[in-house]
């Protein structure tokens, strides 16, 4: 058995004050100047921590408040109130919600998984990934205790093409060539960002992070410069320029290269493999209704890895776009149906925002995922997209220290890894590889609604 995969974490403090959901709004008017102000009773010592004079009732938006309402309920003159923080509501958008962003910050800061009491407080279900639940085991099937390390659950996956059978020559010698395969210990690679402030610091944070985690970060060929070049062994070059300028020496420092789907990606694949046979070639394919047929065609032509990408909201192209989870199911099942699924690796990306999306997309047929925006959020990005407009970043991401950035990424991935173990453990699955396509171990909103609620209100 390979050594256990473990991600080192350490506290990586925020550079900016946290933006929290609610704050304390206090009004000075009418203060009795109590001898024993209720603020002294705060069990989280919010007022003391902020060095506020408790005789002063200053307006405050507070990030340390835990919403216990004790001061609100005990102030003799009812002068303390709570209110929602408008800056919190303004974070992100309908998909990258303030809740998702603040949980990503927490994980990146601490490396810990979000834990809370008092049950689940969110919506019953929702669009996209929120319309499915994962299975668990009890009595009739054992679980695995992965999270406390008592049983080893592997999250390793392979990237590359698989030979389905060995061919032997007349003398019994193996004549088939096994295609190259790259193992990553976490079913995640880092993708290019849809938008980001300029400069090398962000890609460097990604590359440092990839190095520490044993995975890879996709880097545009056009973005390669002497600094990035130092980290090529942890990079996947995305060929967005002249393939002829990628010389053999550079290719040999790579393990994986990505080419865009175009007129003849297979020709490009052949060209690179002729220069460096151990190179794994990924074909980047925009998800669309035609993805199933295109995937099948490319696999028949010899494709090794298909990187199926949706937009930052998890949507494919076209006028009536499907969500990535639906299209991934469609492609996966089509390839299963045609008997070619096991030959290739499918990597899905776009709209992956939480640890649970990782498990859910794998269940829907992906072998691994590519993530982008969460890595930026780990470095305190607020998903304001100002950089897209060329406006300066409110949290100064262009100047971020790559060492700090990579620590935040490492923490985030450690938390995601632990959460993947929770899901796998509850299902009793010992390997992320075995989770792929296990749709029978998931529950889908559409199916359950039809099965359970359809008969309501009907007699007999």
């Amino acid at each position, binding site marked *: 058995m390979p050594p256990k995969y473990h991600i080192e974490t350490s506290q990586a403090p925020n550079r900016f004050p946290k933006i929290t959901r609610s704050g304390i709004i206090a009004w000075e008017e009418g203060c009795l100047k109590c001898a024993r102000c209720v603020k002294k009773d705060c*069990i989280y010592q919010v007022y003391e921590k902020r060095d506020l004079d408790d005789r002063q009732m200053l307006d405050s938006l507070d990030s340390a408040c835990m919403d*216990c309402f004790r001061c609100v309920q005990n102030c003799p003159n009812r002068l303390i109130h709570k209110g929602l923080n408008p800056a919190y509501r303004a974070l992100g958008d309908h998909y990258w919600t303030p809740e998702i962003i603040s949980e990503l910050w927490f994980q990146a800061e601490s490396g810990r998984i979000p834990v809370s009491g*008092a049950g689940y407080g*969110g919506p019953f279900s929702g669009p996209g990934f929120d319309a499915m*639940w994962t299975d668990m085991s*009890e009595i009739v099937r054992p679980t695995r205790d992965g999270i406390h390390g008592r049983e080893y659950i592997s999250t390793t996956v392979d990237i590359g093409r698989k030979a389905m059978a060995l061919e032997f020559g007349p003398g019994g010698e193996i004549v088939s060539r096994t295609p190259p395969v790259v193992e990553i210990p976490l079913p995640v690679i880092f993708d290019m960002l849809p938008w980001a402030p300029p400069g090398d610091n962000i890609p460097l944070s990604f590359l440092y992070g990839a190095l520490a985690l044993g995975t890879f970060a996709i880097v545009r060929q056009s973005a390669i410069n002497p600094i990035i070049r130092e980290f090529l062994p942890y990079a996947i070059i995305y060929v967005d320029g002249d393939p002829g300028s990628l010389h053999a020496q550079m290719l040999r420092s790579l393990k994986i290269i990505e080419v865009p789907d175009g007129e003849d990606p297979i020709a490009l694949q052949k060209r690179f493999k002729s220069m460096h046979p151990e190179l794994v070639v990924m074909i980047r394919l925009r998800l669309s209704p035609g993805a199933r047929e295109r995937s099948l065609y490319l696999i028949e032509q010899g494709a090794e890895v298909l990187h199926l990408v949706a937009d930052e909201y998890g949507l494919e192209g076209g006028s009536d776009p499907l969500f990535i989870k639906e299209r991934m199911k469609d492609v996966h099942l089509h390839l299963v149906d045609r008997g070619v699924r096991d030959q290739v690796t499918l990597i899905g990306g776009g709209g992956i925002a939480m640890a649970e999306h990782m498990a859910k997309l794998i269940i829907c047929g992906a072998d691994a995922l590519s993530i982008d925006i969460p890595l930026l959020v780990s470095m305190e990005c607020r998903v304001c997209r100002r950089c897209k407009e060329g406006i300066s970043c409110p949290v100064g991401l262009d100047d971020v220290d790559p060492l700090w950035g990579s620590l935040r990424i490492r923490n985030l991935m450690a938390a995601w890894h632990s959460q993947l173990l929770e899901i796998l453990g509850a299902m009793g699955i010992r390997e992320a590889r075995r989770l792929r396509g296990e749709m029978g171990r998931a529950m889908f909103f559409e199916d359950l609604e039809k099965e359970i609620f359809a008969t309501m209100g009907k007699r007999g």
Partner: protein
Amino acid sequence: MTANHFHFPGIKKAPSRFRNALGKYRVTITKACTNCGLCVDLCPYGVYRAGAKRPKASCDHLCLGPSCSKNDFYCTERCPEKAIRILPNPSFEVLGDRRWPAELLAGTWHMAETGTVPHQDLNYKTGNSGGGFDKIRFILPKKNGNGSPGANENIATAIELNRSGDIRPRVTIPVPLYLGGMSFGSVSIVTMLSRVRAAAALGTFCCTGEGGYPEELMDYDDHIITQVATGLFGVREETIRRVRIVEFKYAQGAKPGLGGHLLGDKVTPRVAQMREAVAGSALFSPFPFHSVYSVEDHKKHVDWIKEINKKALVSVKVSTPTDVDMVAVGSYYAGAHIVQLDGSYGGTGAAPDIAKKNIAMPIEYALPKVHRFLLAEGIRDRITIIASGGIRSAYDMAKIIAMGADGVCLGTADLVALECIRCHHCESGRGCARGIATTDGELTNLMELEWGTQRIINMYSAWRAQLVHILGRLGMRSVTELVGRFDVLAHLDYIKQEEVEGELD
């Protein structure tokens, strides 16, 4: 059935233990007030108290709000100096979440305070989660005339827990609910005793959870379910012999497939002694029972308990995987009297967010699945199905019974009755700031036992009255008639009001 003659405990007012109760509206009196005292006399809900300089709106959580304007006692209008302002309480929007919105919290607090349903415009029936219970309504026949007064008095709400037909005692509870396991350690001894004493007063049960059987509970042995869970913390033959129901906890909805975790801070010397562990060190309950990997192993477990306590009923608490119906059938054949299905959205203790949201299904799906499967197997009337995990209100309770449960098991609702505000920080620091889920001495002292007991009694008395009301409207004489009646329910996504005869509630 003795439960028909059960004498329900009385309701006594139990106002908020904090100075300012939290309500939807905030009533303020400006300096223009001449202290004429008219508002104090006018308000039938007791919002005002006389004061030296001017009246105090000390109970503005009881205020009807602007909808009071149609009444002739509307204080804002009648005040000679127009000194009264009724405005939304700014803090109200911060309270609660999608499953327990502020109105449901405030409505539940009202029931716990007064024992009656809220008169204010608070939605105390559903939450705002956009699915499941919150989209399901009863189809109530249109009211015909006034109905005969007192017609609801003889509607039975009792259920029988032992339906197996074996030689063990029948155990009837006068309300179709009992209180779920919260261990000593996860909640304070005052919380634990309040729940146990309320359960005893209501003639039902309260589960110990996995944390031992504190001696304070011994006066209430006949109303206690003791839990055997994977860590076997505090489980002894002696405690198993004390009780009338023993519960095996295989899984819990809050963290299906995962073990429990009590943080070191909460493991005080007393907690440690009870659990035969070391103070200050975190305790993990493993998952699963490492001695149970099949229904046959499970039967061995059940037999073991039955051998130790010849009179006890055995309950099996499971969560809701895809094959929950198979688990339920297996539990029946292993000899369980009760199977408790714990849906994934409930739970009280600290759990990973990813588990609470994503692992296993909500109870609204699981319960009908199991009910129909057991019906098809021909064994539905031989086992009691208890639903838990996300039952927040009397309406949720009635709905899940109509979806196939015999009764329900509650936890969070009790805590809300004790003025939990669902800040979700049960696990941090010294524990619950409201003195509910804590073992910190000072915080534990925030709550008095008599008050806690009464709040829970009040709330469930109000629940029972609502259940009786629903049954009365449906023309049923007993809650047992409601079981599995999908025809009296409508899901708003699939049925429109026009398609329904009667009103949706």
